[in-house]
């Protein structure tokens, strides 16, 4: 195929059409699923891949799930080569064949033009349960995969359109909640939407033209990514970050080390010097760690870049097996997605000297709780991930404040809070508070995003809580003179007055009704010296209660009268002058 036969306009059209299809797949998933983790929080991703599994386009509501679909697709295409037919459906979650996390279960559907396999549709979401020792997953005591989850290596659940009932029953007999079955049906439905639409697109242009223009789309995107990478000075950059507490040994600390090499439009992330894997569940899988790398880097390039194979082609990621970010079989790894925040920190620290205007200060790291129990008034079992409570602030950039209450960098505002009133319908708890957390934002010329404070009164029976995450030891870091954000914190105040501070990887059973749950999600880091932030902006935030009078004075050098809340311009000038540029 020579360049002359490529119609550049058709390349644009095909690119646009692919995006429309993955968006439609996402809409179908959002409207039909049952677990609030999917239909309220949108913890899922939809995508299309070519016959070899190369990414055509994705809709990435939660990007940390996103960049394992292409490798798994290639794995299935190879493993089932010669036995892939129209109407087949495959399920997969296995982390030792390129899955990212046990709870993230994918459905794949091959797409045919005539009898030729031309593409795949895939949808993957976080299932409310996946078997294993702990309801809802996240077993902090796990030391091997079987204590965490049912492993689903690539299996065919539909063969030429016919349900393999025995296989289906085997899977769902090992999963606690019936809604998981319904949510996997929704995934298949979403793939069917993708299949139909792509077939009609290919039908319109013919398979040969489609193929040629697909390659041209990859090339155009690769060129764009290469030019973005060329904007970073060639060189070798080092960054590191800490991971605190492996869920087994109190006080344990691990280090992520990344070496980033930029050379001639190509970038390599090498994690070879990262610490070895833990013997608990705080371990990455190759694809969860690679997703973390890609999604962090995507925030440093033109956000309009299409998401296809060409985008990832100039990126190499080296993570030796046996390290914290790529644990060897049969390690427990459910925490792996949540190594994204420290991984992102290491990358940001490495690239700050090279491209200070492209990075953010540190983001608040995820610290999350999952509660399960009985809802007596509804005579039902519930599973709730408290998305509203876990979402802290993002780091500021050179010219913008961080985003308030956006949540962890792995979702970047793609997952949503439960609605408060739906929360009170679906769980037996009473929400007491969910508001911005005063003084949580790291100060700076541009401040970090605000964190939130969440409280609820536990109701119902048999309440058990699992926690997972970080950010309770080291706050989101400030950059180039900016200050740090605040720490995460989880507390239970039992009815008898006892206060129990939860660990970042914890399992608490028998939480009595009447216990008050408190969660602080911290703010993001600030960028640039706080003394350069305009006094009137600080003053407005004092009037809004986002910054205290004391913090305005101590962190920003802005003097506000505590009684009248009026700005004292003269005292502010004096204070700012005396403390230099701060």
């Amino acid at each position, binding site marked *: 195929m020579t360049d002359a036969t490529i119609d550049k306009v058709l390349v644009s059209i095909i690119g646009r059409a692919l995006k*429309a299809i993955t968006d439609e797949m996402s809409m179908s998933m959002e409207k039909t699923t049952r677990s609030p983790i999917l*239909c309220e929080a949108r913890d899922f991703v939809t995508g299309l891949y070519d016959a070899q599994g190369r990414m055509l386009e994705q809709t990435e509501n939660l990007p940390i799930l996103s960049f394992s679909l292409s490798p798994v697709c290639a794995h299935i295409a190879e493993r089932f080569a010669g036995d892939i037919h129209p109407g087949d459906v495959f399920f997969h979650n296995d982390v030792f064949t390129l899955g990212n996390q046990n709870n993230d279960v994918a459905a794949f559907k091959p797409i045919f033009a005539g009898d030729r396999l031309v593409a795949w549709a895939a949808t993957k979401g976080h299932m409310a349960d996946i078997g294993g020792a702990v309801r809802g997953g996240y077993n902090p005591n796990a030391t091997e995969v079987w204590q965490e989850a049912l492993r689903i290596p690539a299996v065919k659940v539909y063969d030429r359109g016919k349900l393999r009932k025995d296989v289906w029953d085997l899977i769902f007999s090992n999963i606690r909640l019936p809604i998981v079955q319904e949510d996997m049906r929704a995934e298949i439905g979403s793939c*069917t939407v993708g299949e139909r639409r792509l077939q009609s697109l290919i039908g319109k242009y013919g398979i040969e033209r489609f193929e040629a223009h697909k390659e041209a789309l990859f090339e*155009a995107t690769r060129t*764009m990514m290469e030019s973005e990478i060329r904007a970073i000075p060639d060189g070798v950059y080092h960054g590191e970050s800490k991971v605190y507490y492996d869920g087994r040994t109190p006080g344990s600390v691990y280090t992520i080390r990344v070496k980033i090499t930029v050379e001639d439009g190509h970038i390599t992330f090498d994690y070879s010097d990262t610490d070895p894997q833990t013997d608990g569940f705080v371990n990455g899988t190759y694809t969860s760690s690679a997703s973390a790398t890609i999604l962090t880097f995507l925030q440093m390039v033109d956000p309009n870049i299409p998401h296809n194979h060409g985008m990832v082609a100039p990126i190499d990621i080296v993570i030796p097996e046996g390290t914290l970010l790529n644990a060897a079989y049969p390690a427990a790894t459910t925490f792996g997605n949540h190594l994204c925040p420290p991984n992102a920190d290491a990358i940001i620290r490495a690239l700050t000297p090279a491209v200070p205007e492209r990075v953010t200060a540190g983001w608040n790291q995820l610290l999350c709780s999952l509660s399960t129990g009985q809802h007596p008034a509804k005579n039902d079992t519930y599973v709730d991930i408290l998305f509203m409570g876990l979402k802290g602030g993002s780091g500021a950039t050179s010219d913008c404040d961080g*985003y308030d209450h956006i949540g962890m960098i792995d979702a970047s505002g793609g997952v949503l809070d439960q*609605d408060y*009133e739906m929360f009170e319908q679906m769980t037996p708890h009473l929400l007491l*508070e969910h508001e*911005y957390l005063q003084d949580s934002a790291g100060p700076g010329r541009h401040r970090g995003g605000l964190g939130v404070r969440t409280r609820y009164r536990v109701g119902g029976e048999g309440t058990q809580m699992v926690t997972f995450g970080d950010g309770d030891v080291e706050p989101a870091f400030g950059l180039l003179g900016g200050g740090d954000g605040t720490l995460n914190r989880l507390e239970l105040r039992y009815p008898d007055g006892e206060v129990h501070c939860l660990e970042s990887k914890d399992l608490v059973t028998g939480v009595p009704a009447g216990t008050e749950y408190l969660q602080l999600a911290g703010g993001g880091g600030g960028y640039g010296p706080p003394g350069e932030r305009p006094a009137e902006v600080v003053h407005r935030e004092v009037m809004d209660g986002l910054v205290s009078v004391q913090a305005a004075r101590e962190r920003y050098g802005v003097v506000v009268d505590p009684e009248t809340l009026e700005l004292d311009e003269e005292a502010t000038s004096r204070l700012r002058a005396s403390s230099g540029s701060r």
Partner: protein
Amino acid sequence: MTEPSANTTYTIGIDIGGTFTDLFLWSSEGQTGTYKVSSTPQDPSVGVMNALSAVAEDKGLELRDLVATIRTIVHGTTVTTNAVLTRNGAATGLLTTQGVRDALEMRRGIRERQYDNRYQNVEPLVPRRLRRPVKGRIDWRGEEVEPLSRDDVAEAVDVMKSAGVEAVAVCFMNAFADSSHERAAAEVLRSQMPDAYLSISSEVLPTIRFYNRVSTTVLNAYTGPVLRRYLRSLIARLDDAGFGGVLLIMQSNGGVALPEIVEGLPATTLLSGPAAGPRAAVAFAEPLGTRSCLLADMGGTSFDASLVAGGDVALQSEGEIDRLRIAMPMLDIATIGAGGGSIGWIDASGLLRMGPQSAGADPGPACYGRGGEQPTCTDANLVLGYLEPSFFAGGRVELSPERARHAIEAHVAKPLGLDLEDAAAGMYRVINVNMAHGLRQITIKRGLDPREFPLVIAGGAGGLHACTIASELEIPTVLVPRTASILCASGMLLTDLQHDLVRSSVGQLDELQTVAVRVDELVAAGSAQLRREGVSEQDEEHRVALDLRYLKQYHEVTVPVEREWIDHGNLDAIAQAFHAAHDALYGYELSEEGTPLELINVRVRSIGHVEQPELPRIEHGDGDASHACKGKRRAFLPHQGAFGQVGVYDGHALRAGDRIDGPALVERTDTTVFVTSEFAVHVDDHGTCVLERKEPSR
């Protein structure tokens, strides 16, 4: 045309857009007229009066004499929309449950552009210092957990008074289940702040989902004083001119209501402008024997797609304005940044894109010669031969082909290494694909196949893209009505009075007595409103629908039900209707599994039917359109990928029954229709261009 007699009366539709105020007039003798004047954004009521003056001048009447003969004015307004978009609404305060005052600003923590760290949250309509917390709590069942703190309410009143607040929203947790706290707070506000505009969540939107309710209630408060001021100014001007007829305001749900009713629910007017379009569109499709159609409205900067299915305008139960949630039934509309002014550009990967940036009306496309240098869709259309330089907008704007060519050459052709005409053809194709995407969103989202709907085209720029969009979607029939460029104004005369009432009633659906009581309450409330609007009992209709889901699902399906099913306790009929609706939307249903159903909301749509004028007819011809042929012009034929000679016809000279085989260009003063070679066009009894695909779809 017959001359107006002394007894002639008029019905008028007025649609205020960003650039033009459109007026459509219908006389009691069945004559119609269309008028366009410039909009007057500082006080849009001036534009309304100017439009009426234009009519008077045309008819040779004094304004007072014309106004005296007007029976009804139906009015679509963008004042509330603009107040939100430009943040020029009222100084607004919010009273809300202690602990959740930031929900309004958080918007459930979404950042719509995930990878863009410079993308900012939207500014909330109420600043945090005016979002006042009040102690007191109702639980999920509607039971009081903690009494309302009147001290907190009093303190909030003090703060808001000293801040000069003009409008107050009240939204407490679980008020959909029990509104006593909200009512008590409202009482205090009424006595302490008698001049403030009040918006109470349990009155505005008594449904579950706190963020939806607080956002909608605040939007309602924020736009209340603005709409009230505007309507009072308009009514005063009309009164001064001696208007003795009825003024009706277009609502986002596609129905109309009296000014005093929308004053209490201004949030129902946030999509007032485009809401009448679908009703007009289906009126033009009805002669084909269908009550369903797609509407594509292409203006200067945006392309709006909407849908009518089986005579019902497609509504969404919630939408957004400027990223702020509004949970009220409103026209389901997909807006794409594609219009005549959309700019063509080359992205960082070297590929051609069209829009969403637009040159707007000022400076406008390069060919306007008003300083615009970027190549736009209109420039491409000119280069492709679709537009006649001296006949654009009825000759109001003289187009410069030279400037169009220059802009496309410099910004598209050169960077892509294409010749000029191929570059223009590429721009045309890309924007057609973008527009087709808007139509797909509106149909496929609901599980509908766009090929099954005739496509009605509105807006001045739509006619040139109609056939190519239809080809892209394999739609066999396209209609371009005579009033395409002012379709919304004409549609306003075809709308009924309509009020959507809703009440949450959450629980497993195992008996219908409670539901029946709710329905009776809502019907009584709807009847009362229609009675105020002068609708007699035999003209009112109440449609009942239930928002249902399978137990444990999260999203509901709104299922229309017969009132007698509810009165007779016919649970089976309701269940069957739900299973069928679920299957149609999502491809499966669970009747065999026996999954219980859960009710979330009860809905009543109260409709007051109004007498609707018949579409005017045009003279019949002999089927031969050659009398209207003005000559031939060189134009680009997309299917052939080459230029050819295309017949040009005077659209105003065409008679009913005239037929033209594509390719052809049909020119009217306000719009040009490009009939590609895949289509043939005939003119129906009402002057609509009916374009039909010559061979069946692939």
